């Protein structure tokens, strides 16, 4: 906790970029990870990944 108060937080922002931009404006240490929630149901994602099977192997 002391270290956190002394050095300040190191932030990983996931998803909404606005929070990352706000932190950077305040010169806080932050990195941003582009991420969006899935746009389809898990069942369809599974079926699509099956079609892709082998691509990542």
């Amino acid at each position, binding site marked *: 906790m002391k270290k956190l108060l002394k050095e300040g937080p190191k932030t990983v922002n996931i998803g909404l970029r606005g929070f990352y931009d706000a932190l950077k404006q305040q010169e806080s240490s932050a990195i941003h990870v*582009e991420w*969006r*929630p*899935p*746009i*389809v149901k898990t069942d*369809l*994602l599974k*079926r*699509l*990944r*099956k*079609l*892709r*099977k*082998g*691509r990542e192997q």
Partner: protein
Amino acid sequence: MTKVDAANKQALQKLFDAEPFLVGMGIAKDTIPGMKDKMLLHAGPHITYDRMSGPLIGAVIGATLYEGWADSVEEAREVLASGEIVFEPCHEHASVGPMAGVISPGMPVFVVENRKFGNRSYATMNEGLGRVLRMGAFDDSVITHLRWMENTLFPILKEAIEKRSNAEDPIDLKNIIAQALHMGDELHNRNKAGTSLLFRSLAPDLAETCQDSEKLSRVLRFIDSNDHFFLNLGMASAKASLDPLNGIEGSSIVYIMARNGTDFGIKVSGLGDTWFKCAAAQPDVLLFPGFTRDDVNPDIGDSAIMETYGIGGFALAAAPAIVQFVGGTPADAVRYTREMYEICAAENKSFTIPQLNFRGTPTGIDLLSVVETGITPILDTGAAHKVPGKGQVGAGIVRMPSEAFVSAAEVFAEKYA
């Protein structure tokens, strides 16, 4: 390599092998396959008159007046509502049109040929910015300008283009696009370099074929004053290059994206001719003075073919100056391009981005990647007023809605399970 990967590789090879050349011009009803009298082509997927948005209504009113099917706006509305006029998507006739994208039987069109595969595509000449038909304007000045384009601009350009198409160095549109990307264009909302390169290439032929120096100077001044003159040719290049991807069994590459101002639609290589549709998005627009966000119509135009081709919004990093027109910063432009690599199956072999150490532009939107990542394509686009007749209100960035991709993915998964 999976069957999908192999099919996508085949599709992309066809895209990279495409050789779009400007080969001629003609009047739409004599030139575009399946074009008939009392038919109007429009941007995006199929739509009926009662579902059309303001700019498309404005453009079909203007086209009705231009064709002489009505003598007043009121009469034009009656003719259009009567069922007498057939409305079909440009894309169903190997054609593309920016914004409302309306092509009527009497309008002149460019002819672009993909010399690798022999297929052709068609597009009208670009009218310029502001109060123009493609933005839904239809007042007397719009119709007068269209008549000048038909009676003066068209015959002069036609003669010069036909001369060049038979010469040893016909106009290679792919080459112009590749060069323009290195000169700060992304070829959707910035066509300054593309227009300049075309102008430079065609000027000697115009001088040789047109004997009327007064008319010629007006033609040259018009092209010089219209930074978007190359847009329609770039779109026709994209269309001619992408059409051979239709029907490649197992391929998940998107080969058409288009909007009619009400609906957004896509077609996928392995799913053939079927449109997958959803409601059109609302663009985030840098407005011209005097307009508000409430004035902006939902997204419209076949110009999304540029991003489908791997340029336009996908090549924003190549065009830092574009942010003055569409909003944001040059860093945003780079970020948009980098994001699009996540959903594309390849990097372009011909179109490269100097700012990214000459990396190929993200090319070949993979339906499966869009659905898996949730990242949908980014476009930089013009924006029209939602009231018919008002014209352009600005330009900006718009992200395509996901629903059309999801419904296409469901059919794709079913078909290729």
